[in-house]
């Protein structure tokens, strides 16, 4: 958004300069030409920002993108839900929606919990690759710590949250980051997960 404000200030300033520089017969021609050129050049950015500002959450239970912003329809998304009492300091006021370029454009205060979704992604085929890139987009706030064993990739913490800090972990019970793919519990780990072009990954803490 700050880029847009800068662009608007630049455009208005230069338009005013053109207006006062040209003769009265040519003012409208000069200013309208300048404004049109600026609008055409900045049209993709304006459209994108406007789409974010006017985005609404999808309300369709049968859709894997249910509850996500409509501008992410057909795109890949990674969501992390933090447990009650373990809200990440940057996402403590609801569920944050972060676009592919790192813009945190919407916060859902009514969401039952706290968390963050990184979306608008495309072209990823493996789960771990998308997960690690999504956490990079969130600028480290969703940093993933994982280990690799003979069973595959095991997620230890996301955004610094360790499930065992909030649940009792022993030899008979425990807690872990559980992976859901398109609203269904993933049958394979993140390291083996093959994605669809509109996959939605969701991480939440579950106990055993």
């Amino acid at each position, binding site marked *: 958004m700050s880029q847009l404000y800068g662009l608007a200030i630049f455009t208005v300033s230069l338009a005013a300069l053109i207006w006062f520089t040209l003769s009265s017969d040519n003012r*409208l021609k000069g200013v309208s030409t300048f*404004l049109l050129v600026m*609008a055409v050049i900045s049209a993709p950015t304006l459209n994108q920002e406007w789409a974010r500002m006017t985005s609404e959450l999808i309300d369709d239970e049968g859709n894997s993108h249910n509850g996500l912003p409509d501008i992410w329809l057909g795109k890949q998304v990674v969501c992390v839900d933090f447990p009650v009492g373990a809200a990440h300091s940057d996402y403590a006021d609801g569920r944050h929606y972060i676009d592919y370029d790192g813009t945190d454009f919407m916060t859902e205060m009514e969401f039952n919990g706290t968390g963050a979704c990184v979306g608008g992604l495309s072209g990823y085929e493996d789960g771990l690759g998308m997960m690690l890139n999504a956490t990079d987009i969130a600028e480290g706030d969703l940093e993933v710590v994982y280990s690799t064993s003979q069973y595959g990739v095991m997620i230890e913490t996301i955004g610094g949250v360790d499930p065992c800090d909030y649940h009792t972990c022993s030899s008979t019970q425990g807690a872990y980051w559980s992976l859901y793919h398109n609203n269904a519990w993933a049958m394979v780990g993140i390291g083996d997960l093959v994605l669809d072009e509109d996959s939605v990954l969701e991480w939440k803490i579950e106990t055993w």
Partner: protein
Amino acid sequence: MLGAHAIDIGPVGMLAINIALLSLVGWALLRAERGLPDGREWTLLAMLAIFGIFGRVLLEPLPNIQPVTVLVLVVGMQMGAKRAIALATVIALGSNLIMGHGIWTLYQALGWSLVGCLGAYAAPHLTSMPRIAGIAALSGVLFDWVISLSILHTLGSGMLPAYILAGIPYDMLHALGNLFFAAWLASPLVEMMERHQTVHLEATENVPVTA
């Protein structure tokens, strides 16, 4: 739509070629108009229709920027609503024979006809260039909202406000495009039409447009 065959020109190159072509068409029509005897109203309208069709087709790469809305507005202003409706319908259908014809053609014809009627209705007040430019910008938004009604055939009316809201950047581009075309074309168009007008509208009384 208009390809460059085996040469990779790119969208900006194609746009430059299209603008050059449109300038050529405009220049040729302007020269041809200068050679016409006065009072050839329908010949002028036919020439404007050709310019409108080419303008819409050739400027297709630019989002929602074309000269048709301003053409129809000025014709409505100078020649009256009936001629503006005829021009609007011919341009909508003619350009869509190239760009794709469908139910939207009806809405485009309706939208531009309304702009023409607005021009005819508001003509007594459109006595200066800033006023014409202002109403041209507003006409862009009016036209877009009429076109938006076409979604009622596929989506419910509940979606209409969201659809209109989502289209505001495109409305803005149309408005700015109209401002540009009005600034550059309105005065020459008014001058041309005054030369060829056969029916002098009481409402307009051929009020000269001043900058």
